[in-house]
């Protein structure tokens, strides 16, 4: 599956890339929110998970999340928000805006790996189930 990782820190992207490739998935990187929207557009929404850092230059993570969820073409893509500021207000805001899940930095690599798999496979089950239902309706 394909995961889009967005963080202004190249080192942060390298760490997450290592985790995702280790569990056998493809990684696309973006350094800010604007690049996320460009890449999702280029890939025609063919992304199984977007991981967004909260604070990024040019377009913040929260605003990127809003843009994705307000676009009919891409609102189905699950989004994992990631931040160094693990305050409840931030968590509530992210989930209210449609984030699928939330991870605080610093994260344990094994825990993050598990959480990514959980997001990917929960979304796969949901989208498989939706396509089964639409076949039955036909």
């Amino acid at each position, binding site marked *: 599956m394909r995961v889009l990782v967005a963080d202004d820190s190249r*080192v942060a992207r390298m*760490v997450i890339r290592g985790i995702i490739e280790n569990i056998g998935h493809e990684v696309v990187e973006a350094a800010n929110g604007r690049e996320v929207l460009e890449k999702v557009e280029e890939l025609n929404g063919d992304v199984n998970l977007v991981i967004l850092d909260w604070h990024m230059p040019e377009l913040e993570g929260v605003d990127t999340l809003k843009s994705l969820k307000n676009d009919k073409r891409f609102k189905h893509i699950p989004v994992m928000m990631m931040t*160094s*500021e693990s305050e409840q207000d931030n968590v509530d805001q992210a989930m209210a805006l449609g984030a699928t899940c939330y991870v605080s*930095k610093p994260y344990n690599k094994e825990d993050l790996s598990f959480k990514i798999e959980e997001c990917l496979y929960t979304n796969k089950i949901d989208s498989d189930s939706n396509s089964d239902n639409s076949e039955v309706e036909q």
Partner: protein
Amino acid sequence: MVEALFVDCDSMDLSALSAFAEPKHAKSETLISIPPDIALIIYCWPDEEEKGITTVKNLRELCEFKDIPIIIAATKEQEEKANKALEVGANSIIQQPIKREKAFQILVSSLRPCGYDRSAQYDFIDPFVNAAIDVIKITSGTVPLFRDMYLKKDYKLLGNVSGLIRLSGEAEGVVAVTFRNPLAQRVVAEIIGVESKSLSNEDIRDGIGELANIITGYAKARLARTPFHFEISLPLVVEGNWKELQPEIEAPCVTIVYEIDGEPFAVQVCLSPSTIKT
């Protein structure tokens, strides 16, 4: 009376200083460590500028993240060249021959913590002390040890690669996570999970910036709903020796020194609440 180390000062008249400072003498060529309990270093500027610059750099390196002011004693003719040493590790210059009143003034201002305010509160310290240890342990697997903590006497960064985070909102200030380079490279390599040698300078800078971001965010979460709640900026990385922290307000600067396998690094926190709720 403070304990002061006088370096290369054999021929200088130190009587004005001896009333305030208990002197120990040393030669720059043979000095390999700063004796314990030294609160101040007085370095008598040589005729050769290059020797002076090199010695000041070495003295600052030997201070090993301790907050020891280095004061240069120079003649009027030497002062212009001695000024360059302020960029590489010296704190101030005192003109020879030293007068007692000037000596006292310099000593007091050198030994006073910067931004010191009797009414200041330091309830923000614990979250920062724990933040560096927890964050580095979780991200790299290495456990730093706490070494020392003090109120810094100047706004200089202790390491040569530092991640700075500006703080704003209910509390204002700046946080720096500052390393000397070999340790910076090692820590970033451990975080990524690669060999140190494979890292570029850009990776090291980026990694230290990200580390500063995570450490500050970790402390921030634990200071929510206190007078020390703040918003954080994107990280800025500063490279080079003896650079300025440049806080936007004159806040006291708490410095927390840690070590990994004997190598020091520090978190420098200059923070003051905009309003204190009682």
